[in-house]
Structures are given as structure tokens and as C-alpha cells.
């Protein structure tokens, strides 16, 4: 009889590495998803990982069509449940490279429970959370990240819900890798993707993604040339928090971040908050830089890798227990199991 392991050992590597599948990509023209697909494809190609060892698992929503467009293994599952499917897959196949594609509705609304448990367990997966602050596939209802007052098809008088701050939520769930990127900054997105893939554990990247049909321009202030420098803050490990083309910085006044005017000499670079991606407390403050950019004196929105820490993955713990049990009690003997502890014989 052939076992699963034998089947896998018998497989041979393919000759060329082309990660695009033969399927026509069916997102709306101009959708931010195209850029994200392109960046993922690019880094996969650069890394040259065998296609058969890569798996993309998605839930439901526009973003979740993603797996169909890559020539890797893939599953387009059901709404919100990708984290659970990933957890089972990783438990039995800890060697694969697993990616999870999800959206703000998929992972923060219907699948919110699964996401926080994925993070606390620290399943080794790269989670790409496409956040467009709207329900696209169902044609334009507000999402759990839509701002209060958002006027959408389901909220003609404005949304009455307070939105999630996704990264603060993830930090609260003890995520071991937290980052933010955007579709319109491909270079930064690729850098973050590479770092996420290198991290062992759940790497969560929130990607601001423009839905040009139902929520066009939601992130304009972060992506447009004229406003980007003043509203974004690109954090780099070991570097001070500087924005507005180097004219402004952020320093920590106790636990409170404060904007200082470097150009006016209010502070020097040495006074600024130096980003330390290993500092859990600072990361907890960083994720809270979530001001409405319309407000006077709003803190810029951070992008980049906020936080990385090492913690064992749940699949390694699951498999370690299996190994430990095998070592302690020997590889399971089915006859001994069927017999149990106490038997009697008749005849």
C-alpha cells in the first residue's frame, strides 16, 4: 500500500518556475489586487521556492479569488474560515510554505474569531489581509474597517459602527509578526512580504488595497504624491520615526507619542523614537497610531514591520507531542490498542 509520505517522496521537481496559472484574472480593471498578486508572484520567483511546496488558502471575497491565479496548490474555501483550514493543514504538513489570503470582511467580521486564535496559536502562515474598508464582492456594504459614518449601500445614513483597528486587534491577540503595506507602494510591499515569509509563525500583513469600484480613494491620502509624505510614516528597525520628507519626527513623551518639528529645531534625530521591531510595548503604541487623517494634527499612519518576535508554532508543539508519545510509548501498535488494558478469553 502506498502511504501519503511515499507518494510525496516519489514526486519529482518541475523544470521551470512560472508562478502564474493558466486562469484569466477576473478582478475589476484598476483593482488594487492586481498589484498585490504581482508583488507576491515576483517575490516567489525571486526566492525560487518549488511551486508544489506552496499553498494559498483563501476565504470568500474579491481577494479570496487569489489562489486561482497562481500555479501553486490552492484552496478557495468558505467565508472567514481560512485560518481554521490553514491550522489543520499546517498541523499535518509543517514543511509547506502556506499563505492565507483574506479581506477585511473575511477575517475581521465573519472570521474574526478564527483570526485571533490563529494569531495566539502562532500557526506558521503568511496572512495577507487585503483591507479596502468595504464589501466589494457583495457590491458595496460597509465593512468592519469602514469609518464611522461611512455612507454605503447598507448605510445610507452613515455607518453607526465603530471600526476595528486591525493591527491593534492582532497585537492584542499576541501576533508574532505585524506589518502594514499598501497596493500602491510595490517596493515596500515586496520588502514586507519577504520579511513576512522569513518569519516562522503567523506573519500578518495588513495591506491597504483600493477598491476603485465601491470605495475609490479610501487610502488616497496615503498613496497620492502630494499628501503621502505628511500622512505616512515608514518605520525601519533601528531608525528614528521621521516623516514629512524629514522635516517632522515622532518622539515619545513617556508613553505618549508626540509630533515634533525637526525643521524648526524642536528636536533632533537623537531625541526621536527609535523603531525597535522587537519591542512589544512600543509596538503596542505604534499600532495605536490610527488617527483619522482629516483631523488637525493627526499622527501619520505607520507602514512597515511593526513587530517581530519568536514563539514556537502550534504545529511544532502538536508534532512534538506526537514524537514524544512515540518515543515514550513506541510507535502505536494497533493490536495493543484494540486489546486495551483488560481482556478475557472465552473458549
Amino acid at each position, binding site marked *: 500500500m502506498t502511504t501519503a509520505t511515499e507518494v*510525496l517522496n516519489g514526486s519529482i521537481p518541475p523544470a521551470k518556475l512560472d508562478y502564474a496559472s493558466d486562469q484569466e484574472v477576473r478582478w475589476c480593471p484598476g483593482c488594487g489586487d492586481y498589484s498585490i498578486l504581482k508583488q507576491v508572484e515576483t517575490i516567489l520567483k525571486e526566492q525560487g521556492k518549488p511551486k508544489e511546496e506552496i499553498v494559498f488558502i483563501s476565504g470568500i471575497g474579491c481577494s479570496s479569488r487569489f489562489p486561482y491565479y497562481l500555479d501553486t496548490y*490552492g484552496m478557495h474555501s468558505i467565508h472567514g474560515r481560512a485560518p481554521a483550514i490553514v491550522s489543520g493543514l499546517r498541523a499535518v504538513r509543517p514543511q509547506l510554505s502556506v499563505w492565507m489570503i483574506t479581506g477585511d470582511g473575511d477575517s475581521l467580521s465573519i472570521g474574526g474569531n478564527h483570526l485571533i486564535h490563529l494569531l495566539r496559536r502562532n500557526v506558521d502562515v503568511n496572512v495577507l489581509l487585503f483591507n479596502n474598508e468595504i464589501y466589494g464582492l457583495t457590491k458595496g456594504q460597509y465593512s468592519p474597517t469602514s469609518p464611522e459614518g461611512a455612507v454605503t449601500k447598507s448605510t445610507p445614513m452613515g455607518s453607526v459602527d465603530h471600526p476595528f483597528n486591525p493591527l491593534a486587534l492582532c497585537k492584542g491577540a499576541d501576533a508574532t509578526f505585524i506589518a502594514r503595506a499598501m497596493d500602491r507602494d510595490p517596493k515596500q510591499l515586496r520588502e514586507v512580504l519577504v520579511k513576512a515569509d522569513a518569519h516562522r509563525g503567523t506573519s500578518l500583513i495588513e495591506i491597504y488595497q483600493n477598491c476603485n469600484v465601491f470605495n475609490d480613494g479610501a487610502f488616497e491620502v496615503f498613496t497620492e504624491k502630494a499628501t503621502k509624505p505628511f500622512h505616512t510614516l515608514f518605520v525601519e528597525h533601528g531608525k528614528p520615526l521621521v516623516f514629512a520628507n524629514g522635516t517632522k519626527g515622532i518622539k515619545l513623551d513617556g508613553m505618549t507619542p508626540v509630533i515634533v518639528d525637526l525643521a524648526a529645531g524642536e528636536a533632533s534625530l537623537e531625541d526621536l523614537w527609535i523603531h525597535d521591531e522587537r519591542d512589544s510595548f512600543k509596538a503596542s503604541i505604534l499600532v495605536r497610531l490610527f488617527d483619522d487623517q482629516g483631523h488637525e494634527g493627526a499622527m501619520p499612519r505607520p507602514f512597515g514591520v511593526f513587530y517581530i518576535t519568536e514563539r514556537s508554532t502550534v504545529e511544532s508543539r502538536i508534532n512534538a507531542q506526537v514524537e514524544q508519545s512515540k518515543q515514550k510509548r513506541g510507535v502505536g501498535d494497533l493490536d495493543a490498542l484494540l486489546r486495551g488494558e483488560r481482556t478475557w478469553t472465552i473458549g
Partner: protein
Amino acid sequence: METPTRTKTVEERRNVVILFAGDSGDGIQLTGAQFTDTNALFGNDVSTFPNFPAEIRAPIGTMAGVSGYQLHFGSVELFTAGDQCDVLVVMNAAALRANISKLKLGGTVIANSDGFDARNLRLAGYIDQQDPLTDGTLTNYTVHAVDVTKMTRNALEGMTLGMKEKDRCKNMFVLGFVNWMFSRSLANSEKFLEGKFGRKPELLEANKKALLAGYNYGDTSETFTTRFEVKPAPMPKGNYRSITGNQGTALGLIAGAQKAGLDMFYGSYPITPASDILHELAKHKNFGVKTFQAEDEIAAICSAIGASYGGALGVTASSGPGIALKGEAMGLAFMLEIPLVIVNVQRGGPSTGLPTKTEQADLFQAVHGRNGEAPIPVLAASSPTDCFEMAFEAVRIAVEHMTPVILLTDGYIANGAEPWRFPEAKDLKPITPPFAKPKVAGDMEKFLPYLRDENGVRPWAIPGMAGLQHRIGGIEKEDGTGNISYEPLNHEKMVRLRADKVRKVVEGVPPLDLSNGVDSGDLLILGWGSTYGAIKTAVNEMCAEGHCVGHLHLRYLFPFRKELGEIISRYKRVLIPEMNSGQMRQLIRAEFLVDARGLNKIQGMPFTAAEIKVAATEFLKQ
């Protein structure tokens, strides 16, 4: 340890039903299970019915808190835990009041007199100082009032244990006493205690002392002049052990995974009465079993789907409310066409219903409970040992036919125990997963994940197999390629292909065979699931009385085997006893256009054989 014996009369009995009842904190379940074990090891046939409240520690002394454990043991083959009991052991007044109706006239009550003080009597609902032990209401029975509390404390005098801990040994006193009463040695119970309290020598000593004190009390007290003896049963030759249904299910799943050469992944969320499957599986990680206590029922099944996708055997189990939550994911597994076993240990519903009681009301849920047309094979186990067989079958079908499979058991057989003539591993059927053929160098042909074999089964390509990358999902897919397709005719074709595949599953299972009775005649009693023992007993008795009755018990509930219609047509009448309002009856009527009659009991309690016999006899007169 040597157990003293004195000369007392010994009466032989063919079979005995004993019911232990007390507060849910009295250790009733343990006492019952231990005595079951002892009798099974001795060679009796046994059948048990543990019956307990949903509350862990319901208010002490109340009717709501009564926990019961009914054991039927005999020198003859037994199929049920017994309709009524011969001996009723009660730890308090509430236990007596809740169970006295189950005692045969002339039966024996063993009552812990300490549990009949004014407070206990009041809590049990006996008014105006009425005491059933003394007021003459029990004249139809033999009543022995024994101050178990006092005698247990006396036996443990001098030990440094607190009073609470001493009182916890009361159940061992009772166990010791019934061991004496039925002429059993204490060796098995002592061995059990050594295993349980091996690391707590003081508790071990106390429990052993209480056990022996109970035995000696029976032996020395002049109240008890008669002991009973139940000789070993003429069971088929072989090696036996005792097993509960949930254990049987767990072992069947492991055995199936082993025979298929697969690691097993069990995703589950705790729920009564299914949790014991998780507990059992978690003990056997050295078989490559990975247990995952998920955040909810949906994650439980979805993680199992992920594991199956990864090339392992994904399994999930729950009870009705949890199964309801898994519905959408079952549809996904059905669309993906990957192996998955879903066990439903049914309990009383709807909603939270009766968590610790039994019912068969999730049949429709199993057969129809998904959106779209998503037929899934449904199997049902008929007894604790059959849980092993059917769990193994569920694995075989899931793997070989690349389909989710639902296995129905219920609270009665899940918690009940019986002797099991366990098989040897080599005698279990091999299971062959339909793995996709690995690509060889130079093979440029496109892999088709939905290309079917003669049984309609698609190949299982596991991530990691080079050249076989493919994408699957819940969206309708094109025949062969598995690519997304909204094409109208393709959808109809796929719906039919998937249904055909499931239909073919039952073509490969054994033909239907009568359980007992005559193979044509006046009445067919058609059953499924845990009603097996009661129907079998009733039919045996009716046949002995000259009635032309047959008993057919279905283990493959959906799809039906096609000869079922022909078998039904051989009888003038069809009676379908079910612990629901007639779900199987509706399915049978719809499929075979036959005027089947229902016998429906929806009380959270299993049928007694007498209930079935009375209804069947009545039906025959019409």
C-alpha cells in the same frame, strides 16, 4: 488481599439488572462502570445505560441531581441494559424517588439510610416527614437500609483524611457490598484503585478499606442471608474486552487511519456527549493522531478539512448543535471531494435540548442539512461495539470514495458499554487512498483534479506532489479541470456526477441482512441506531411466541441499498421504532411508497424491549 467468606445461601440467576443511583457527586458512574468491568471480566454478557444530569454538581439531594448507572449482566446473551431492574441501589431519597418506578415488583432496594434524613427527604419532595423506608410504601419490595456513610467513616477511623475525603469513599463501600452480593472477588476493583490512586497512597488505602468494609458487611451482617450468582455467558469464542460506544468510535477511527496508512487529525470542540472521543484520541498520539481543540465547531471541521487537504485523515465529531454549525463546511468538503469523517453523537434536541440524554432526531439534519444538493453518505452504529465497526467503515468510505461521511451514534450507545470481541489488526479490511499518480520527468500532460474513476472518485493530489498543482474550492467547478465554471449545463452535470458518486458508495457495502426473526411475514420491524438491542429482544420474544416478525436494522442510512424496497415488500406491515417523531419513517415512505407505521418515543430515554413488543403486538392485531 484475601476476602473473607461465610456460608450463606447462594441463588443462581440467569441475568440481573442493577441500577445504581445517587447524587451526581456520589461517584455513581464510577461504581457502575467498575461493577460492569468486574462482571465482564468474569465472563458475563453486559449492557449498560449511564444516565446523568447535565449539571456537573446539581443541587445536592434533589431529583434534578440524580445520576444513574444501569447494568444488565447475565449468563445469557443480552441486547439491552434491561427494561426494569432487579436491584436498586440508592444513595439518597431523591435517587429512590426518581427510580422506584424502574424497579420490578418484588425487587430489592439497597438504601443508604444516611441519605434519608429530614433534609434529604424534604429535598426529594417527600412531605410531612414521610419516609419511604419506614412508612410502608415499599412493601412490594425487599428494602435494606444500610448506613453507608457511618460504616464508611468507621472503616476509615484513625486515618488522617478529612471527613469530606472519607465520605468520598462511600461509593467504594457500596461497590464492595454489591461484589459480595453477587459473589464477585474484589481483585478487579482493587487493581483499578491501584491504577487510579497509585500516586496517592493514603487515598488508595482509604478506598480499599471502604471496598473491603462493604464486602465484609455483606458477609457478616445477618440481614443478608442470600447471595446471588450469575454464571459466565456462552459467548462466542474469542478474546474480549469491555468498550463504550465513544471508545469504540475513537478506536475505529484510529484503526481506519492506520489501515489507510494515514495520519489522523481530529478537530473538535468540546460538547456533551461527544467529548469522550476527543479524550480517548488524545491518549493515542503515538499512532500519529493529532488532536486539535478548536475555537469553535466551525474551526473544528475546517481544520479537519485543511488536514485532509494536506493528505491526512481529517475527522471531526460533535452533537446536534455543533453539527448544525458545521453545515456549511460539510458542503465545502463535499464540493472539494476530499475525505472527511463527521461523527454526530446525537442527544436530545432541538437547540441545547437535553445535553446528556439520548435521541435520534438528527437524521434529517444528517441527510438533508446542507445548502444545495450535497448528498453525503450517512452511517449509523447500533451498539457500543458497532461504533467501532461503523467508524472504521466511515473512514474506509471517506478515503476510498473521496467524500465526507457522517456517522450517527447517540448518547445511549456512546456512554453505554458492552463486551467486545475485538478483532486483530490483520483481519481488518485494507483501505486504499486513491492518490494521484506522481508525475514522471517529461510528462507534460495537464493534471486533471476532477477526472473520475469508474466509481466516480477523483484522484487525491497532495500539496508537495510536483507537477500536480491545482486549485480547488467551494465554487462550482468545471468537470475534469476543476476550474471555476458558471456554465449552466456543467453545473447540472456536476450535481449529478457528485450524487452518482455517493450512490455508488452503497453498491460496495454488504447486502442487507435480517438481524433476527423471519424473512417474510406479518410484520417487519425496521430500525436504525441504538434501538437495535430493544428491537432484537422484542422480536426474539415475539418469534418465540409464534409471531411472524422480522427485524432489519439499517447501518447504512443514506443512500439506501436498493434491495431494501424488496425486503419491505415481503411483509404485510412495517413498524419503525425511533427516538424521534418519525424521520426514518418519512424517508422510507418517500423512497419506497410504503405505508410504514411509526413507534416514536421522544423522552430522552431509550426504548425498552417491552414497549416495542407491546406496540408490535398491537399492530399485528390490526
